[in-house]
């Protein structure tokens, strides 16, 4: 930073955004600045106010719910908060633009993507139809979309998630705005796609000299792209500084805690444990037919194989990670084993009992030994039931008396780190992490032999995530339950699993101990996955850069 500092593109001073209903601030007294060509990462957990900040800069706050009550926002010297709606509209896409998290829903489903990008030019009065088309095709080439002509005429649903995000990025950058706000732009994407999108943003930023305000919760991503970092918590700025300052020498304990919570890609030393085999899966396969009702007579297509014949073994006291991107078949595998969907073929032996072919009625007694914890703790608990009834439901189904089941529910609640007093509450009175603990307690109430954790920590903030991981590991070591841990996140898998199976397109491509798979992967896809995991250049637990792996 010896050259004269580039101009400030975005300047936020004392910004306070409040809920209209209560007057309670969701962002309080925030000040920051982003210079041309610079990437400022805003990091925080859910509820930190990072998304509200980005919407405020765009002038896109929901006027019915939120209002800026204090502060100033200037973009390229122009005051955003004082601008009229028409001025604001003209500033969007020309001075500042935004890329959103969900490429699936960010595009109009009934218009071609070409028309949607051209619309940016049209509403800002640029060029005639032919010129606009040409410019859009050039932009599609710049974001490395293959065959721009064909893409131009495609509808969003015909494109992949990564392609859609490239469309949104071309839309945002086609008018060369000074400021790009990227709100969790890669969170909904697979890691390999995420890497490509991050590279693309970096490339375009360098080409156009764009200032980037990058909102994320992922420290891995932050360590790779940030020039400077802002840490936010509950609407307030905790800390601001250069990447190395914040990641290596955090001045605040909150930042320290966050950074230290990032799971390491290096598995901890673990004694090779594991008892007798409790779950044996052999040749398990699932294909989805495309028949439907009476119309099915006319439209019976060949089934789509979601899971090719798969073998798998799980021992008592062992955590087996199933790692894969979306569409890898990992969730289908879990649901087949749980018999939530009937497998097409193959065998599932649960402690010697074959359950793959059992009827629902015959299966019922065996359900006790096989339990599941789902991904979304907001949907997996019946909102109308009290915690004690949620946890006691399983035991009651197996004839345990109500008093005994409630007493056990109290014990379990304490085991998962909550208090017995909470038994009478409803799920909505708990945070996401607490709800996931309740879901774990509910699964444990039946003292299962096998626990399936389907992306069970993916919806949680990083600090909560590490606590829940520790809880699961502790339960496994203590009770000897075998855990099948489904995840897309290599870091999480590295932290908790004894063994890891990597899946791709419905097949297991590699299985081995966590250390072996992560340190010496044999399959090229595993290597690709590991290479794409963001933040390999940083050792978060020890607050230092990791020299051996190159950054992006």
């Amino acid at each position, binding site marked *: 930073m010896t050259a004269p500092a580039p101009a400030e593109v975005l300047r936020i001073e004392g910004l306070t955004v409040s809920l209209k*209903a209560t007057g309670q601030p969701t962002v309080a007294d925030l000040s920051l600045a982003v210079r041309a060509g610079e990437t400022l990462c805003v990091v925080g957990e*859910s509820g930190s106010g990072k*998304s*509200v900040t980005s919407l405020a800069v765009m002038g896109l706050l929901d006027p019915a719910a939120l209002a800026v009550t204090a502060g100033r926002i200037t973009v390229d010297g122009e005051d955003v908060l004082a601008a009229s709606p028409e001025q604001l509209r003209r500033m969007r896409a020309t001075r500042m633009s935004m890329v959103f998290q969900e490429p699936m829903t960010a595009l109009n489903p009934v218009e071609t993507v070409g028309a949607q990008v051209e619309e940016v030019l049209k509403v800002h009065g640029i060029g005639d139809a032919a010129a606009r088309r040409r410019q859009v095709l050039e932009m599609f080439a710049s974001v490395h979309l293959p065959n721009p002509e064909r893409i131009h005429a495609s509808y969003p649903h015909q494109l992949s998630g990564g392609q859609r995000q490239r469309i949104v990025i071309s839309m945002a950058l086609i008018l060369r705005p000074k400021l790009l706000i990227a709100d969790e732009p890669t969170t909904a994407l697979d890691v390999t796609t995420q890497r490509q999108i991050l590279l693309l943003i970096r490339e375009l930023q360098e080409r156009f000299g764009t200032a980037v305000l990058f909102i994320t919760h992922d420290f891995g991503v932050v360590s790779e792209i940030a020039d400077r970092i802002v840490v936010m918590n509950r609407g307030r700025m905790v800390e601001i500084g250069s990447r190395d300052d914040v990641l290596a020498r955090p001045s605040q304990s909150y930042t320290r805690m966050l950074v230290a919570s990032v799971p390491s890609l290096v598995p901890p030393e673990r004694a090779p444990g594991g008892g007798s085999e409790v779950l044996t899966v052999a040749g398990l396969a699932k294909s989805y037919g495309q028949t439907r009702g*009476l119309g099915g007579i006319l439209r019976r297509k060949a089934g789509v194989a979601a899971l090719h014949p798969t073998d798998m073994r799980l021992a008592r006291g062992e955590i087996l990670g199933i790692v894969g991107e979306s569409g890898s078949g990992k969730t289908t595998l879990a649901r087949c084993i749980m018999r939530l969907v009937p497998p097409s073929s193959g065998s599932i032996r649960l402690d010697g009992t074959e359950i793959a072919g059992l009827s629902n009625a015959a299966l019922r007694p065996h359900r006790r030994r096989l339990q599941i914890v789902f991904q979304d703790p907001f949907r997996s608990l019946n909102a109308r039931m009290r915690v004690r009834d949620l946890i006691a*439901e399983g035991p009651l189904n197996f004839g345990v008396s109500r008093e005994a089941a409630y007493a056990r529910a109290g014990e379990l609640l304490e085991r998962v780190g909550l208090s017995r007093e909470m038994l009478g509450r409803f799920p909505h009175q708990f945070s996401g992490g607490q709800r996931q603990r309740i879901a774990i307690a*509910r699964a444990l109430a039946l003292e299962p032999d096998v626990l399936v954790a389907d992306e069970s920590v993916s919806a949680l903030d990083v600090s909560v995530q590490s606590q829940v991981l520790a809880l699961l590991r502790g339960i496994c070591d203590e009770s000897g339950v075998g855990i099948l841990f489904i995840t897309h996140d290599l870091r999480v898998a590295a932290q908790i699993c004894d063994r890891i199976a990597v899946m791709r397109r419905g097949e297991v491509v590699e299985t081995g101990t966590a250390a072996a798979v992560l340190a010496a992967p044999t399959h090229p896809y595993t290597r690709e996955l590991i290479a794409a995991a963001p933040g390999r250049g940083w050792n978060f637990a020890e607050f230092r850069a990791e020299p051996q792996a190159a950054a992006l």
Partner: protein
Amino acid sequence: MSALTTTGSPPHHGGRRFLPRGHGLSACAALVLLVIGLSALIGPLVIAADPLHIDPVNRLKLPSAAFWFGTDAMGRDVFARVVYGARTSLLVGLASAALSLVLGTLIGLLAGYFRLLDGVVMRVMDGIMAIPSIVLAVALVAVTGANLGTVLLAIVLPDFPRVVRLVRGVILGLRQEAYVEAAISLATPTWRILLRHMLPNTLAPLIVQGSFLVASAVLTEAVLSFLGVGLPPEVPSWGNVIAEGRTYFQIRPGLIFFPGLFLALTVLSINLIGDALRDALDPKLATRR
């Protein structure tokens, strides 16, 4: 917008948003309905006039102190007939809506949960719904002969498939919900999953649907009577009063407009309350403004 969902308490989409809009209107509607309901309930006990009393001397009188709404072609007091008619109309409306709800919920629950049943049941429901409801109702009453039971049947048969479809839709959606799958994993018996985990979620849409069913049933009863296939002519129902007024409409429009006004006011009030209920109970629509 994750910040917004975590700061708030449970998804009670607090009154603030929908209260100002139309709140006064739905309060008025409730009041109107209360008055009409009360007059249906106690009116016949209070007013002296007999709705069936034929008085050839006082035929087709204009409204006066003695006959508030005038008299009809047989000299009967129209006011008394309208008040007694409220009884019939509301009774038919409430009873048929209740029947549709019970029948529809039961079938909808089963069709939504058991796939084998679903195909057959929904084809039958599609078939019933394909027959325009007024036509079906008219034909049913005509064939079976008009009395309270057949009129109810004629209203319920075309209406209850809508409830089936509603409940089935909710249940189908819930089948994929993680908490229902969790209950399956806990070996919870099917009947318990249906009653404890699924049925409560149908309550809010059913209440809303129920209010619209009452409104449509009141209307259908009136239409049946108006077309001459409803309750027997001597029963004072709004539709019958209107039907009898048709002949003398050009000289005494009040014979149609007085009962018509009450009919319209009742249906309007029920619909307004239904709208308010939907705004209050369906957060998806309530937030959209």
